[in-house]
């Protein structure tokens, strides 16, 4: 069963509030440097891209390499400006992606 990423974002905020967004995805982040018991290289499979959009516009993103730890944790800051939906997307080497969206009401 696929584990859904966790995102910490308050449901409500005042305009101008500085908010730390914490995200945690579940992924092995296989580096491509490891070998299995038979000596065959285990192919690289990592989440290589994280994006956060607000109203369809990118506000933050990250390009990840194999040196990012398993179960990638990314935290960053945003300024609350308007009510709307934040969309968080993680994409792996195979092009598969998973998304979480969070609504925020800004007063």
């Amino acid at each position, binding site marked *: 069963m696929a*584990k859904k990423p966790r995102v910490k974002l308050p449901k409500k905020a005042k305009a101008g509030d500085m908010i730390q967004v914490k995200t*945690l995805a579940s992924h092995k982040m296989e580096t491509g440097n490891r070998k299995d018991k038979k000596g065959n290289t285990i192919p690289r499979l990592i989440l290589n891209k994280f994006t956060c959009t607000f109203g369809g516009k990118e506000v933050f993103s990250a390009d990840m390499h194999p040196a990012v730890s*398993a179960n990638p944790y990314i935290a960053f800051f945003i300024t609350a400006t308007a009510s709307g939906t934040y969309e968080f997307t993680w994409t792996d080497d195979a092009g598969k992606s998973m998304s979480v969206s969070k609504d925020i009401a800004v007063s």
Partner: protein
Amino acid sequence: MTFKKTAITAGLIAGFGLIAAACTQQKEEHMGMGHPYGDEVWSGYATATPETRAMQDDDFENPFMPYVDVAAEIYDSPQGEANKSCADCHGAPDDAEGGPMGIPMKGVGARYPIYDAEMHRPINVELRVNRCRTKYQKAKPFKYESDELLGMTGLVVMQSRGMPRVTTADQVGDELYPAWLQGKAFYYQRRGQLDLACKHCHEDNAMNMVRAELLSQGQSNGFPTYRLKWQKPGSLHRRFRGCNKNIRSIPFAYGAEEYLNLETYLAWRGKGLPVEGPSVRK
């Protein structure tokens, strides 16, 4: 590479050898009836770095939690031929009343392992979850150490976070007393190529270094835990197996009676410590 491995092994053996030598000068075994640590019982949290503590302190930073999220979905969805969910009997995980069965999840993490009248031995949270699956849900048991069972154990244990761990297993006449005795014997039994018992590291040398590793009291109150080294969640029995392999002894199977006895005994050694699972450890 071969040289490197040999060097590592040689270093390890030399390191443990020093400890072992030092230990023989101390009394060979703790035979007193009192608690081996007296009042100085501490959790592995005490010696964790601020960075590791921070990961545990906020569930949005604790990488164990996505596994708990999956388990929460399983908890609520009908399972097996009986088509019953965990919630059908126990209510929500945090339901203080414990649903129609009146058995809340809160407190489980503080009092387990308990005595299992069916098997006449201790049963831990992992095996109890699987008992529910096979007996009441008529579903397949989860594999020990599977993501599902780790998540489910984490979900159940975290309902008791902060509660002090309780046990009366050390009392003569307690149903768990024989298991407690066996667990104690295991704890003080030298084993493996390095000929070390649990007590050599975790009783005689807690707070001392073995190579670059700060030795803990080997408390179990943080399990299941997310280990930075494993880069994934793991059970107490995985940790036991790791310890056993480190001293070059053959580990027992997951859920083995030997480990259940040890788990019972360790719960007593950490009596009063707050439940921290799912914790984060180095």
